[in-house]
């Protein structure tokens, strides 16, 4: 692998991790909005809205950035997976379009209760649909034959959904001031952590039974180490939640997601899409990659201070009650 391709892959991995953690949390927020129950259902929804509102569009741009990176730096792979994953990608898009639109429609339809309720339900439903569909895409890619409706792909879909719900619940414990609400999200975070562990285990069993080649790659030392790290982080996260150490839990859950993506990356290397394109086979020419990295460097100089400003204004302390 040339240094240029390695640089581009590093950028890709960073962007994907940021999208998975922050974008995933926003989808997870929608999941908990759908599942809001009990006396405090309304308060839960309000907390979720306040947490997502200022940041979801910025978080969402990581996805667009990743897609642009893919079609600029690895155009044949982009074309190939656009054909092979046409159906799940289209479903993911339906989810993305409806989630974003429904979120603002619900919030700005004040006074029109019925319309607000309908869009609220669409917001929650779309927040479930998008991670499921992205999970199908990732699972399908990993099989090496775009088998996006295979049992393994469905396991990854369920895994992606539970992961989003887990990240969101953990983050939300830090977003609310009310002790009862903190308790609500703590219970949800613990529940989701158990679900992630269970679904992850099922996914490994299904991989062993139906995708021997994939399982062999996952069991290779390079990937196995990262899988083990992810499991340890998940266990530590459970402990942190039980001990109500939310700031620690927030870091652990982000680390867990990064480790899971790292395991996927480790298992696939040197393939960008298993058995179809290696990084080198799909990569654009040197000048294209260089131009992309220059653009990224210049962009990063304005991006990261701006992101810091955004998060420091809205994520410093639990939002005051309005």
């Amino acid at each position: 692998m040339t240094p240029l391709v390695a640089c581009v892959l590093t950028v890709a991995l960073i962007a994907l991790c940021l999208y998975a953690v922050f974008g995933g949390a926003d989808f997870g927020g929608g999941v908990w909005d759908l599942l809001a129950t009990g006396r405090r259902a309304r308060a839960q929804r309000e907390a979720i809205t306040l947490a997502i509102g200022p940041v979801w569009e910025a978080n969402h741009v990581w996805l667009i950035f990743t897609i642009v990176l893919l079609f600029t730096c690895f155009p044949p792979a982009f074309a190939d997976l656009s054909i092979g994953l046409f159906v799940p990608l289209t479903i993911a898009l339906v989810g993305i379009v409806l989630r974003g639109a429904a979120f603002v429609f619900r919030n700005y339809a004040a006074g029109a209760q019925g319309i607000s309720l309908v869009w609220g339900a669409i917001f929650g439903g779309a927040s479930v649909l998008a991670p499921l569909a992205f999970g199908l895409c990732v699972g399908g890619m990993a099989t090496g034959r775009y088998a996006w409706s295979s049992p393994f792909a469905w396991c990854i879909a369920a895994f992606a959904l539970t992961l989003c719900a887990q990240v969101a619940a953990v983050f939300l414990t830090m977003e609310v001031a009310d002790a009862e609400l903190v308790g609500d999200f703590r219970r949800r975070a613990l529940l989701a952590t158990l679900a992630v562990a269970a679904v992850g285990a099922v996914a490994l069993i299904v991989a062993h039974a139906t995708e021997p080649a994939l399982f062999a790659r996952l069991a290779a030392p390079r990937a196995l180490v990262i899988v083990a790290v992810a499991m340890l982080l998940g266990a530590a996260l459970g402990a942190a939640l039980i001990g109500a150490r939310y700031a620690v839990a927030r870091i652990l859950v982000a680390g867990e997601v990064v480790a899971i993506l790292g395991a996927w990356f480790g298992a696939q290397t040197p393939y960008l899409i298993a058995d179809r394109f290696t990084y080198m086979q799909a990569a654009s020419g040197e000048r294209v990659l260089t131009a992309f990295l220059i653009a990224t460097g210049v962009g990063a100089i304005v991006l990261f201070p701006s992101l810091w400003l955004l998060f420091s204004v809205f994520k410093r302390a639990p939002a005051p009650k309005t």
Partner: protein
Amino acid sequence: MGTSLAFHIVFAALGVGLPVLALVAEGLWLRTKDRTYYDLARTWAKAMAILFAVGAVSGTNLSFELGLLWPQFMRYAGGIIGLPFSLEGFAFFIEAIFIGLYLYGWERLSPVGHWLTIVPVAVSGAVSAAFVTCANAWMNLPTGFSLAGGRIVDVHPFVAMFAPPWQTEVLHTTLAAYVFTGFGVASVYALAFLRGKRTAKVLAGLRIAMLLGAVAIPLQIVAGDLSARFDAQREPVKFAAMEALFHTQAWAPLTVGGIVDAAHRRTLGALEIPGGLSFLASGNPQATVRGLDAAAPDDLPPVAPVHLAFDLMVGSGTLLLLVALWWFAATRGRARPIGKWLVVALGCSGLLALVALEAGWVVTEMGRQPWIARGLLRTTDAVTIAPGVGAAFAVFSCIYLLLGATCWWLVARLGSA
């Protein structure tokens, strides 16, 4: 893709223009402490929240559709035109970050600090539109690479990003966003005015929007002329289709309106100004202008819709200029009550601006057919082989109808609130 683009362009244009209006309104509030301007800025912020979100998600849809619908095009061109899209990604980041700060920061930032957060939104909105237009300029006149045995080699991304039409296209597209926003918002307030809402807020909203529209429209007509001259030189087939000029000739007439009869290479019932087209293309009424007969029959775009769209665009633009002049003559640019017929004209101007925006897009896209990238790849060779495209199209058409209707309902509610 066409549906998605036609849908997205409306929100993209408003995403470029609305922050400018909000910037002015909130700035006026800071300076005069007049509560009317504050209310106006708050209302426009709400409208922006809705429209920006729909613009963001429909834009995401487009970035995926590049691959989902045109995989062969992206296989060839992804690397070449990736640079402007990458830069656009960062511009969009800045837009999304600062719109978050702007929309949710009213209570968390100082008044001046809050006002400043809309500046990056306005700037990056215009810049991201410019980057995307650069990619479109490349499709019109691909450059920055060599062909060896049907394969693209020797790619120069920075050359490709600034394909020859980029200056005229970026200017024309950016101004189109301001024209559409100015007249679009003005018409919302004119309609409120017609329904009897004659508050200071409605008058102030109308005035700020019209100031933007009235400044942008004369500039836009100049920019349009520059674009047409460029096309006459460098995209003669598109130019000939726009003007329905079938035969290469000196003293070429300017053909306005009429029914294009492509099979017999003629236009029926059109108003023809002798030498007009030659004059527009080169400043000399005797000059020879290349007609459609100069291109191979396989390389011709559908003349009738391109000519019709071109006339609609120019006609709407001219009417908008007249409305702007009328408004300025009646008000001298101030927020004063105006006569009924001018209000009616202003109420219609939003629709005219929408027609001009969409027709202009039809001209540049349909005028390039049958090519997706002129001279390089035909649209029919670029389209996906994946099954299910029809179903996806139907689903997204329904979603967009639903979103468009909801947006309209919500924004109209804001306009009369």
